[in-house]
């Protein structure tokens, strides 16, 4: 079993980061994600939004892994459950693979919160638990996977910055074209920044 954890600070307020995280795909840094579906969504009695999503990914497994595990299809599915608490300003996501569960288990947890000292910044804490089953090279493979997760995490952060830039660009264009005929609170908030 391997545990990987990291913390990252975005120079954007929590609301911006949360909107971006909700619309993270597609982005050029994660081209293997080809489908995102919402399976369930609701607001609980405390005003928190719960979402269950299915992420469909196509990896292009290296030939060695294919011959080792005897799989020919490379489509893997991840199920994600998330909770947005707009009062506490937390966005927590937990995901797990639901494909190849007999071979490997990758559980990931991400939490976005405002930076305790600076409300214009957001802290992302991220952890992953990796477990490879029934293979004698499990330590080595788990190490490789942790490295991949680390690389992907940094791509994921790049992806978030990309999504945030897109959101801000859209808002600027909307404001310019609408010229006050359309009142958008979000555009006003960004323009005031």
């Amino acid at each position, binding site marked *: 079993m391997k545990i990987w954890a990291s913390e990252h600070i975005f120079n954007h307020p929590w609301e911006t980061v949360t909107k971006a995280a909700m619309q993270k795909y597609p982005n*050029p840094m994660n081209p293997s994600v080809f489908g995102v579906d919402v399976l369930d969504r609701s607001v609980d009695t405390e005003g928190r939004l719960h979402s269950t999503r299915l992420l469909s990914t196509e990896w292009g497994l290296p030939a060695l892994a294919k011959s080792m595990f005897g799989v020919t299809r490379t489509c893997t599915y991840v199920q994600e459950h998330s909770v947005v608490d707009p009062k506490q300003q937390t966005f927590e996501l*937990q995901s*797990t693979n*639901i494909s190849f569960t007999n071979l490997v288990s990758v559980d990931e947890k991400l939490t976005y919160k405002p930076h305790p000292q600076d409300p214009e910044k957001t802290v992302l804490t991220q952890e992953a638990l990796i477990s490879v089953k029934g293979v004698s090279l499990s330590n080595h493979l788990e190490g490789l996977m942790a490295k991949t997760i680390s690389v992907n995490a940094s791509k994921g952060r790049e992806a978030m910055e990309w999504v945030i830039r897109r959101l801000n660009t*859209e808002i600027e264009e909307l404001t310019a074209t609408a010229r006050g005929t359309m009142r958008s609170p979000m555009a006003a908030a960004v323009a005031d920044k």
Partner: protein
Amino acid sequence: MSLSPTGLEQQVGPPGFAPLSFLSRAVFFFPEMNSVGEACTELKREYDTCFNRWFAEKFLKGDRSGDPCTESFRKYQRCVQAAIKEKEIPIDGVDFMGPNKDKPES
């Protein structure tokens, strides 16, 4: 229309230069994701547009007024649940009102 990863990369350039054709699309003209069920992609995008707007403008601002997306969600769900059954995707049971569930072992 979804954009290829290459197409998206080309647009990660100077801000404010997105092609004007985007203006003719829905208000939040974001590059869009597909559904796992190919036939459901359009329904999914309709729902996503509604949801993203409600999420940003109401929910995150503390506005607890009704969710305007229930109808589009229902239509999208019918389609996607059928696609999941058809592709035999091993979805885990949903307990959305409860505490975060533990991840199951295989």
